[in-house]
C-alpha cells in the first residue's frame, strides 16, 4: 500500500471540494472495498477523505419517498423498520450480502460503487482492460465461470458484485449526487455506464462526485417483492445469479412487474424485455418462462458460464411463481 494523507470531511461541500477533480483522492466510506483494493495495489490514492462523519446516515420519510443517506451502514439499512416494512426485497438483498461484520461497516454509497470481483482485475500482475485500458481481458479465455452473460463486450465481461444495487434497480431507486456543480439526482440504472470499449469508465457521474443518498418511490400496496440469491457456498459468498422482483397480480393478470438480475452483467440488469412480455398477461409459470427466455435471448455466454443461462431462466420462473402464489 502506498502512503497517503488522511482527512475527515467536515461537511459535504468540503468533502466534494477535496475529492472532485482530484484523481489522487478517494472518499473513504466503510473502507471494506477501498482498503481491500489498496492492499492489493489496485487503488493507490494519495488522499483519503473520510466521509463517515457526514450527517448522511439516516433513513427518513420525505412525502411518499423513503430517503436513505449514503452513509447508512448496510446493517442499519436492513434492520430499519420502514425498509423491512415497505421494501422487504431491499432488506433481504442487503442481508444476503457479505457477512454480519462487513455489513456493520459497509455503507450504502460505497456498496453501489464497489468494484468488480473479477480475479484478473484484483491481481495487478495480470493484464485487465478495466484496470489498465488496452492491456487485454484475460477473463474471456480464462476463468469466467462467474462473469457476465448479458451486456458484456469484447473488452470486459466483469460483473457487478452488489446485492443491494440489484434490489434498488427493481425498486426504481434514484440516486442523489453532489459534485462541484452542486447536487443533482439520477435513476440508479443510469449510474452505471454500459461496458463498451472503456470498461475502466464505470460510472456516469463525474470523477469525485459524492453519492449523498438514495430515494425510493412507493410501491403499489398490493405489490409482493422478494430477493433470491444463488451461490455455491450457503452464505458469505457473492452471487452467481440473483433476482430481485416486484410483482403485482390483479385478477390473475400481471399489472406490474419489475425484475432485476444480479451477477449477470457489469451492473444490475433490469429485465425490461421480460417485464414488457409479462405486463397485462397471465401470471402463470408458462408466461414467466416465456418472458425469461425472451430476456435471455440476448445472452452471450462464454465457455464456462453457459450454465447461467438456464440457471437465470429457472430462477426467474421460480421466483415469480412463488410471488404469484
Amino acid at each position: 500500500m502506498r502512503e497517503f494523507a488522511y482527512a475527515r470531511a467536515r461537511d459535504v461541500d468540503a468533502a466534494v471540494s477535496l475529492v472532485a477533480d482530484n484523481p489522487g483522492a478517494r472518499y473513504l466510506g466503510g473502507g471494506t472495498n477501498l482498503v481491500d483494493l489498496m492492499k492489493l495495489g489496485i487503488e493507490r490514492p494519495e488522499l483519503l477523505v473520510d466521509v463517515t462523519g457526514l450527517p448522511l446516515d439516516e433513513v427518513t420519510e420525505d412525502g411518499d419517498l423513503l430517503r436513505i443517506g449514503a452513509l447508512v451502514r448496510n446493517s442499519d439499512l436492513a434492520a430499519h423498520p420502514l425498509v423491512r416494512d415497505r421494501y422487504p426485497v431491499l432488506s433481504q438483498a442487503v442481508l444476503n450480502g457479505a457477512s454480519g461484520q462487513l455489513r456493520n461497516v459497509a455503507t450504502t454509497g460505497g456498496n453501489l460503487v464497489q468494484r468488480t470481483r473479477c480475479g484478473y482485475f484484483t491481481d495487478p500482475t495480470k493484464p485487465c482492460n478495466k484496470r489498465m485500458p488496452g492491456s487485454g481481458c484475460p477473463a474471456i479465455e480464462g476463468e469466467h465461470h462467474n462473469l457476465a452473460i448479458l451486456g458484456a463486450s469484447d473488452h470486459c465481461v466483469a460483473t457487478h458484485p452488489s446485492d443491494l444495487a440489484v434490489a434498488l434497480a427493481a425498486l426504481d431507486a434514484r440516486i442523489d449526487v453532489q459534485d462541484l456543480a452542486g447536487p443533482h439526482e439520477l435513476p440508479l440504472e443510469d449510474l452505471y455506464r454500459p461496458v463498451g470499449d472503456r470498461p475502466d469508465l464505470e460510472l456516469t457521474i463525474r470523477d469525485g462526485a459524492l453519492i449523498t443518498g438514495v430515494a425510493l418511490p412507493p410501491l403499489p400496496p398490493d405489490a409482493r417483492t422478494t430477493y433470491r440469491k444463488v451461490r455455491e457456498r450457503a452464505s458469505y459468498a457473492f452471487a452467481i445469479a440473483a433476482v430481485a422482483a416486484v410483482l403485482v397480480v390483479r385478477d390473475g393478470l400481471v399489472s406490474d412487474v419489475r425484475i432485476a438480475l444480479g451477477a449477470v452483467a457489469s451492473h444490475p440488469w433490469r429485465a425490461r424485455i421480460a417485464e414488457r412480455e409479462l405486463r397485462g398477461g397471465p401470471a402463470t409459470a408458462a408466461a414467466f418462462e416465456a418472458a425469461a427466455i425472451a430476456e435471455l435471448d440476448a445472452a452471450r455466454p462464454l465457455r464456462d458460464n453457459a450454465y447461467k443461462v438456464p440457471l437465470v431462466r429457472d430462477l426467474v420462473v421460480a421466483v415469480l411463481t412463488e410471488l404469484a402464489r
Partner: protein
Amino acid sequence: MTRTWQAAPSVGHPLTRVEGLDKVTGRARYAADIPLPGLVYGWVVPATIPRGRVLGLDVAATLAMPGVLAVLHQHNAPRLTDAGDATLLLFQDDRVAHRGDPVALVIADTPERAREAAERTAVDYLPEPHDAAFRADHPRLYEPDHVNPRLPTVTDKGDVEAALAGAAVVVDHEYRTPPQHNNPMEPHSGTAVWADGRLTVYDSTQHAYGMARTLTKLFGFDPGVVRVVSEHVGGGFGAKGLTRPDAVLAVMAATLVGRPVRVTMTRPQLFPLTGYRTPTAQRIRLGADRDGRLVAVEHRASSQTSRLLEFTEQSASYSRVMYAADNLRTSHRVVALDVPTPRWMRAPGEAPGSFALESAMDELAEACGVDPVELRLRNDATTEPATGEPFSSRRLAECLREGARRFGWADRDPRPAARRDGRWWRGTGMAGAHYPARAGPTVAHATAFPDGGYVVRVGAADIGTGARTVLTQLAADALEVPVGVVRLEIGDSDFGRAQVAGGSMGTASWSWPVVTACRDLAHRLASGERLPPEGLTSTYDSTEALRALGAFARYAFGAHFAEVAVDAATGEVRVPRLTGVYAVGRVVNPLTARSQLIGGMTMGLSCALLEESIMDARFGDFVNHNLADYHVATNADVGELDVAFVDDPDDELNPSGVKGLGEIGIVGVPAAIANAVWHATGVRQRELPIGPARTITSGQ
C-alpha cells in the same frame, strides 16, 4: 516421600482441552504472535512469470525506499545444501520454477513498509515457454518409481483384463478431482532469532523436529544450533508438515541483518508456496457378477507435480485395501508441469481415491440392483486385497451396519429422482472409508518433581487435534495420577526426535514413548527410587519397538452417509445431514475425537461442493488465490453431523491402542454426497466440486 496413587483413569473421558483457556482468551501465542525486541519483517517478492530466469532486480531502488533494511536475492543469499526438497533451495540461482516462486525478500522495519517495498521491487525476467495445463491424456505422463509416501506405483494381482471380459456387469468411468488448497486459518509464519550462538525459529510447523533437521542440513549448521518452537499451530492439514519457505527465508534474513526477522505469508502467497492437493483424473473399471460380487477392480490415477520435485498422490492405493477382488490392478502416472508443487492435504491419496472408487461402487450397485451398503458388505475383505496380508483389525462391516442403522438407511427407496419436496430434490448416499494406522519413531521424557507435579516432554505439535490433551490423559493414566498434576510440553525440537503431526500418526507415535516413559517412571517411583530436587526423569525412544512390529495391514475403517437437497431450479446443493461411523482403535477423548471427525467430514463436504483452485494455465497461477474466491465451508453449509464409534480393540498397534482419526473423516464423504446427488436428481457427478455449474449443465 510417601505418595498415595490416585487411580482415576482419564482415558475415555471427554476432558476439555488443556490449553483451551489460553485459546479462548487470546493468550495462546501462535508463531506470528511472539513479541521480540528489534523485530523486523520480511516480505516475499514473488515471480510473476511461470517459467524462465531472473535477469535483474533493482535492489538499489528498493533499498532507497523508506524503512527498508535489506533485500535478499540470489546474489547475497547464503548458499544452501539440498535437503531433499528443491522447493526450499531459495535464491540459489536465477531460475523461476513457477509463478509465485520467491525471487527476493524485502526486509523492513514495519510490515506496511516491507509490503510496499516488496510490491514496488522491479524485476526483469526472461520468460521461457511453459506448460501448466494438466490433462488426463498429457503426453508427458509417466510412471514414477514410487508414490507418496513411499508406496509402490503399481500393484497387479490376477488377470484384470480377462476377468473384466468375462464379467456379467462392468462399470467403467473416469472421475476427476480439482486442485485444492489446505488453507489453514493461520497463514504460514516463521521468525528467526540468533542469540548466544543458537538460532531459534518460531514457526507454524506441524513438525518442529523435522524442521530443525531440515534447516540444519540446508544451511550446514552444526548439530544443536537450531531450535524450532511451535507451541500453538493454527491448523495445517498437511500444509505445515514439511518445512516451507517462511522458515528458510526468516533464517536467511535474520542471518543477513543480524536482527530477529519475521516472515508471514499472505493468503495469496500460500497458494503457490505451501503445497496443495494435486488435480487427479482417475479411471475405474469394476467387473462383477450379477449379485455385485467383484471379480475385477482396476484403478488408474494420474496427477501433476512441479518441475522442482516429484510428488505423486497415491490415489489408486485406496483400492488396494478396500474391497476384495481376485483380480486387482492399481497404477499411477504423473506429469511434471510448470506449476507450484503439490503436497500433502488431509488424506492425500485416500481423499481423491475414495471419491473415484466409492462413486464407482455406487454405479455398480445401481447396475446390479443391489443396495449400496449390501454391495460393500458382500465385497468385504478378510485379508488386504492387494497384498494378502492379514489385517490387524478390520471392522468395516460393523461401521457399515451401525451407520445404516443410525442414519435410517433401511427403508430407502433406491430409485433416483423420486423425491421432490417443494424447491428441493432430496436424496441419500453413502460410502466406505479407510485410512492407514501407522506410527513413527519418537522420543519422550517424563519427569516427576518433589512437589507432586509431572512434566512430560515430547516433540509433538497440537494443530487442533487435541494432541496435548490426549497425551496428558494417556500420561496421567500411565503414571496413575490425576490429569491435573501432569503438564505436557510439546512443540519444541529440543525434546528430541518426534513424528510429524500428520498422516493420522501423531497420537499413535507420540503416545508410544509417552506412555512407556510414564509407566517406567511410575514403576521407579513405586519401587522407592529417590526423587531428587531437580526431579526424576524417564526417557523412552520407540524406534526399536517399532522395528519389532509384526507384519499386519493396519487401518482404521469407517462409513459415511449423506442426505442432500438439490434446488430444482438453481442446482444449489445443501447437505442437511451427515453420519460417520468409525473403527479407529481406542478413543482416548471422545470430545476431541468427535471434533476432529466433524472437521474431517466438513472438509469432505467442502471438497464435494465448494473447493477448487482454478489454474489459469496461461499464467501458471491459481487465479482464485484468496478466501473470497476459494470457498471453504462456512457455518451455514453445515447441518446435522452425527459421529459414532464401533468398538475396535486391536493389540497389534501400539501401547495405547489408537489408530488416529485426523484424516478418515474426510475419506469417502465426497463420494457419499455425489452418490446422494445422483439419488436426488438422477444425474451422476463424476467431477468435483459439484455445484450449480455442474448440476445444471449435466441436464436435469
